[in-house]
Each structure stands twice: as structure tokens, then as C-alpha cells.
């Protein structure tokens, strides 16, 4: 077991006066995926926003490779090596697909995206269209492509499979597996249990803003997960 890449300890935070996330702790090692599960409204996206710096931690710490980052701004966290694919508004609607991909790159070369574009031909076909015309699922594909190409050591994905066909979900799982093999650590928030089971090395289940279950893939029973996800 290698040293964890990202460690969050006792993180508490939320909007206004209400803490949405309460004393949540967890970690993820390089080359592994931590899947955050839970019903809606349990604080999963809020946790991601706390980790990425959109919200300030009222309590708790976040460390990336040992460096404390809980007071850093979002662009600073990106600069340290965290990629983020948000759940809502995952792409720049006003820019073309090509511009979305190459915006922060030194040139407009599409070579780094070749693998993804091959798997998701819909993106390749719409390179010069405004990203706003893509469907919800297609936007998620675009967002993931951009994120993967950043090749940063840490990735935060918030519901990457939302709105996708199963076929593309499988592609996604394969790409994530490749990224894992390259040494990236990932935290993935998911609603889709079948997808989560394919990619997760560890689970972290939330309810009412707290952690109610953690465990590795081997130790955790599907029935246990279902109990927390069901209505």
C-alpha cells in the first residue's frame, strides 16, 4: 500500500449557516479509485466542492501528497495537480468542442485526445460545434476527455456517467482503468452502482452529510451498499 495521495480528515462545511458535510474523512492512494456513494442530498457534491476549494472547510483538513491545501483557491489546487469534472455545467457551452479541449493547452493539437476521440466518435464528429448543442451525456464525455488529457496526479469526477448509454459507460470504465494504471488517484461520486462496482477500489457511503460506511471492494457486500442507496 503506497502513501495516500489525497487525505481529507474531519471535513465539515456547507452553505450559509448550515453544515451540509459533517466530519467526513477519507483518503485515496495513487492508482486507486475511491467511489463516493449515497442518495441525493447527502452531501456528495458538496464534499467535492469542498475538496476542490469552491467552499471553505469550516473544520478539518485536506492534504495532497502531504501538503495542506484547505486554504488554497481553486486555481491553486489545480496548479498543484487536481483535475475536476463537475456534475453541473461540465463544459463551456459557448466554446466549440475543440476549444473546450485545447483551451489551456499550448496549441490546438488534438493528438493528446486521440484515444478518447476514437472511443467517442460523437465528439470527433462535432469538433467545431458549440459544446452547448451537445446532449447532457455527450457533455460528460467531453468533460471527461478534457480531464483525462490533463494527466494530473489527482482527479475528482462528479457523476461522470450521468445521462450516458451503457456502452459509453463501459468505455469510461476502461479509460479510468488506464488512468489508474498510469498512477493517478481518483475520487468518483456516483449514483450508478453497476458502474461504481466496475471501477472502485474503495467505497465511501454518505448519508445526511456523514460517512455511514467505508470499505474496500473486497470487504463490502452489494447488499450493504444497496441498503444505503435505496429509498
Amino acid at each position, binding site marked *: 500500500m503506497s502513501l495516500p495521495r489525497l487525505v481529507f480528515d474531519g471535513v465539515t462545511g456547507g452553505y450559509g449557516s448550515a453544515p451540509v458535510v459533517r466530519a467526513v474523512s477519507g483518503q485515496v492512494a495513487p492508482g486507486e479509485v475511491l467511489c463516493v456513494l449515497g442518495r441525493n442530498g447527502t452531501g456528495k457534491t458538496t464534499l467535492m466542492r469542498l475538496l476542490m476549494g469552491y467552499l471553505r472547510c469550516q473544520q478539518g483538513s485536506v492534504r495532497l501528497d502531504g501538503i495542506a491545501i484547505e486554504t488554497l483557491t481553486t486555481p491553486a489546487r489545480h496548479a498543484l495537480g487536481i483535475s475536476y469534472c463537475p456534475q453541473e*455545467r461540465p463544459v463551456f457551452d459557448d466554446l466549440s468542442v475543440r476549444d473546450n479541449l485545447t483551451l489551456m493547452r499550448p496549441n490546438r493539437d488534438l493528438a493528446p485526445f486521440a484515444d478518447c476521440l476514437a472511443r467517442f466518435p460523437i465528439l470527433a464528429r462535432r469538433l467545431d460545434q458549440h459544446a452547448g448543442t451537445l446532449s447532457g451525456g455527450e457533455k460528460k464525455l467531453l468533460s471527461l476527455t478534457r480531464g483525462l488529457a490533463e494527466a494530473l496526479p489527482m482527479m475528482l469526477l462528479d457523476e461522470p456517467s450521468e445521462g450516458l448509454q451503457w456502452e459509453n459507460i463501459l468505455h469510461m470504465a476502461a479509460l479510468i482503468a488506464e488512468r489508474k494504471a498510469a498512477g493517478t488517484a481518483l475520487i468518483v461520486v456516483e449514483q450508478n452502482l453497476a458502474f461504481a462496482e466496475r471501477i472502485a477500489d474503495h467505497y465511501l457511503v454518505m448519508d445526511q452529510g456523514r460517512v455511514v460506511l467505508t470499505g474496500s471492494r473486497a470487504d463490502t457486500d452489494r447488499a450493504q451498499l444497496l441498503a444505503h442507496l435505496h429509498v
Partner: protein
Amino acid sequence: MDPLIVTQALNVVYGVTTLALLVLGLAVIFGLLGVLNIAHGEFIMAGAYCAYVTQANGWPFVAALPLALIVCGALGIVVERGLIRPLYARPFDTLVATWGLSLLLRKLAEALFGMGFYNVDVPLHGTVALLGTDYPAYRLVLIAVSGAVLTGLFLWFRLSRTGARIQAMVGNRELAEAVGLPVRRLAAYTFVIGTCLAGFAGVLIAPLVPVQPFMGLDYVLKTFFVLVVGGLGTVMGVLSGAAVIGGLDSVMSAAIDATSGYVTVLVVAILFLWLKPRGLFARS
């Protein structure tokens, strides 16, 4: 073609294109960044005074352009850092603060140059024979320059890397931060572009209007109304708004008098604010 009609038509074209040029700075600052800079008119005034200073020192007219860029650029940097940045989340306070700034700049101009007005000489005298009529050469130059600047800016915005980044920041700020865009720096840069455009426009119109401390007031209202009517954040917005406001103003002022032009513009603006507040071509 009847020379009178040609002249009137050219006057309208002139009115609309110069208005579009004057709006550009505010279109960038208010239309893109969403900052209501009520001091926009005073940046135009600053540019106009630069033209006067250039003339008073005996320099060629074109020297006023880099001077205005330096003055308005420096002012823009200071204002963005000190006034705008702390108030980004509070649009109403931004309005009040920039209103205070406009007052400050006006009083400064009064203190430095006095309350009277100055005339800046037209750099290009004479007329050009065009379509059966003689039209002042400088006005034609202004029409051409306005067109060139509008086109150039539009193309730069659409095709350049920085233009795309500004669009990204404006359209989805959170994602922009997540992909590593230096959002604060880019917003400051965009603001300064806006103030420089205002100064640039001020230099160009200086030969055609009395240069005095209160000149900014009329411009800030007219340019604001152009954006209200045309819509924020799009080029079509700037053009259509300038066409409606500038056109109405020119026509009514020519037909009756300046006050009627003013009233018409005001009534139309209020109607739009009332019934179609997003304007004709707003960014979605």
C-alpha cells in the same frame, strides 16, 4: 441621388457607428463582465482631454492615442484592483462606487482644466465628394475606423486564444477556475481593455464635440441604453442597440431638436427596460 438625402443618410451612419465605438468599452465591461461601470463616460472624457493635451503641447493628433491608452490603462488597473475587485459579488455597491469614481474624475478634470470647454482641432480638414455630395473627411475617417475596430475586435474575440478564455471565464466561471484559468488576472485584463477602448473612442470624438468635464454624463447614459436595448454580451446586441438609439437620436435631433432626440431615446429605453429588459440580442 438627392444630395440632401445622401447627407442625411451618411449622418445617420456616422451617428450609429460612432455610438457603437463609444459603447465598445462598456459592452466589454458591462456586457461581458457584468460590471456596471457608471464612470465609463469619464474614461471617454479622459481620452478627449488627452487629445486636448496633445494639441496644447503641439504634438501630432495621433500621439493622443497612445497617451489615452496609457492614461486609461493605468486608471483601469488601479480602479479594477481598488474598487471593482472587492465588490464583484455586490453589483449595487459597484454602481455606487463607480458613481463616486465618476464624480471624482469629473472634479479632477474641473480642478485640472477648469469648468469651461475646449475645442480640439479636427486633424483632417476638408470634405470628400461622395455619392453626389460633399461630406466632411474626418467623419468618414471615423466611420471607417469604427467599422475597422468593431470588426477587428469581434474577430479577435472569436478567433484568438485569449478571446476564447475570456468567453470561457464569462460563461462558466467555476469551470474556468477548475481548469486552471487565472480568472482574477483575466477579469482585470478584460476590464482594462474596456477602459482603454473608452479612452480610444474619447480621443477620436474629441475634435467633434466640446471637451468639458461634464461630457461623460451624456455618453454613459446613451451607451447604457444601447446595451439595454440591444442586449448584453453579443456583437449583434451592440450593433442593433447602436442602430436603434443612434438612429433615433440622429433622426429626431435633425427633425426637431436635441431635446426631442433625448426624450425619444429616454422613452424607448424605458420601454425596453419595462417590457423587454434583456434587450434584442442578449447572450443566453
